[in-house]
């Protein structure tokens, strides 16, 4: 075992040099972080199987034998029903509100196609993407939402390790019992579909559950610098899972105006809004989110009605490049973004800060 606190079991078992995992939707970020010694995990929800094949091939070409992964949002629940029934459930008040927003703010109708209902064929779509991950023998499959337990044995047969994100201790217990290789304990401060328990509370509890098993634990939610990396390892995590910090890297495909807003945002600026999907998504503030908080605005509807209601107006906003109205999921760790820089530099800086933090602790103990 290494004396270096940053050389954890994650490094031993996966061959990475530092215990930093980067989740991003841009394949360039994945390659950059992996080549800098971490592990890049590509968020592939929404990809077609063909796109995913292509992205994996691109990454493999650049990282060689280094470890990387693919994250899919495997569902944990779904409802039966057809699109026509659901359309009739959208109240006229909500339709009128969206129409007013379009008229008063000159938001054009989109020229391109509007997205469809996902629940049709949801299970089959998930399976199709999983098959690509296994065909390509991707080193890591991460389930960003539901339990990956059902697919664990098949993944292992293809040489793919299985990771699972959890937002609650009981989910972690189920995944550990199922023999999932890595459990990512994702705290409340994270971007997107965060859990309800804070990172500092969740991580030690999940670490305690995993003691004596082969399952490793990663800390997620609010991690953007080396002090938080050092704290996570001190809490017993084998490393950190990070997302927001990579949005403002050179390699990220995030639009430049959003990168600039990420730099300017404070931790308290990112808020949970139901305006886009009907479910709380932590994200950067925008005129879109603000419009649904104004006096007189109706409460957003639930999934899947809210996306059915707002898909057209959001497509119009995107097509017209109405920057102030656009947003991106982001966690409270946005406060750690101060400039746009290469992903590798983010990795190196985080490592250096963590080493400094450990040195300070050691010095303090020696100095007593």
């Amino acid at each position: 075992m290494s004396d270096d606190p940053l050389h954890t079991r994650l490094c031993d078992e996966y061959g990475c040099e530092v215990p930093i995992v980067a989740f991003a939707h841009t394949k360039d970020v994945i390659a950059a972080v992996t080549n800098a010694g971490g592990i890049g995990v590509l968020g592939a929800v929404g990809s077609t199987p063909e796109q995913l094949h292509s992205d994996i091939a691109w990454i493999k070409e650049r990282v060689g034998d280094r470890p990387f992964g693919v994250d899919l949002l495997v569902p944990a629940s779904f409802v039966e029903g057809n699109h026509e029934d659901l359309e009739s459930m959208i109240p006229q008040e909500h339709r009128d509100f969206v129409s007013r927003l379009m008229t008063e703010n000159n938001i054009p109708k989109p020229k391109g196609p509007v997205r469809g209902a996902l629940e049709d064929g949801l299970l089959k779509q998930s399976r199709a993407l999983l098959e690509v991950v296994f065909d390509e023998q991707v080193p890591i499959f991460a389930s960003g939402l539901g339990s990956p337990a059902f697919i664990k044995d098949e993944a292992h047969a293809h040489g793919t390790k299985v990771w699972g994100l959890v937002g609650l201790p009981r989910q972690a217990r189920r995944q550990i019992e199922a023999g999932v290789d890595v459990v990512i304990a994702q705290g409340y401060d994270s971007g997107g579909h965060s859990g309800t328990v804070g990172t500092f509370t969740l991580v030690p509890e999940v670490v305690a559950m995993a003691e004596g098993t082969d399952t490793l634990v990663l800390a997620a939610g609010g991690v953007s610098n080396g002090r938080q990396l050092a704290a996570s390892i001190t809490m017993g995590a084998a490393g950190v899972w990070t997302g927001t910090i990579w949005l403002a890297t050179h390699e990220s495909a995030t639009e430049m105006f959003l990168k600039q807003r990420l730099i300017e945002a404070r931790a308290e600026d990112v808020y949970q809004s139901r305006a886009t999907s009907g479910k709380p998504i932590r994200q950067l503030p925008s005129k879109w989110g603000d419009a649904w908080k104004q006096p007189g605005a109706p409460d957003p509807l639930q999934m899947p009605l809210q996306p059915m209601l707002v898909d057209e107006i959001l497509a119009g906003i995107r097509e017209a490049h109405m920057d102030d109205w656009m947003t991106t999921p982001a966690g409270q760790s946005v406060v750690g973004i101060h400039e746009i820089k290469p992903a590798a530099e983010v990795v190196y800086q985080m490592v250096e800060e963590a080493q400094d933090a450990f040195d300070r602790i050691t010095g303090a103990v020696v100095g007593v």
Partner: protein
Amino acid sequence: MSNDAQQFADQDVRITFDETLVGRPVEADGGAPIAGGQAGYRTTFKGRLTGRRLAQGDPAWLWLELGDLVEAPQDFEHAHVWVDEAYVYFLDEKRS
């Protein structure tokens, strides 16, 4: 519950009925990806099992149908929801 054929057409789904599950109270952690975007959502349900089981694909991905919902997201318009068996917690069993 009447449109299985339409809903699951071409999804390699088998639905069976397990009488021993009927009426058992459970909590379940649900959630799904959001259509057209790159995000997902998490949610929690509480209710009673209907006894219907669903197995999709090979290896089987197992789901249980939940009804009599006493806890669901605000404005949830459906009487039933399918939940992954891996995240179903029986409320009539002692906590481990």
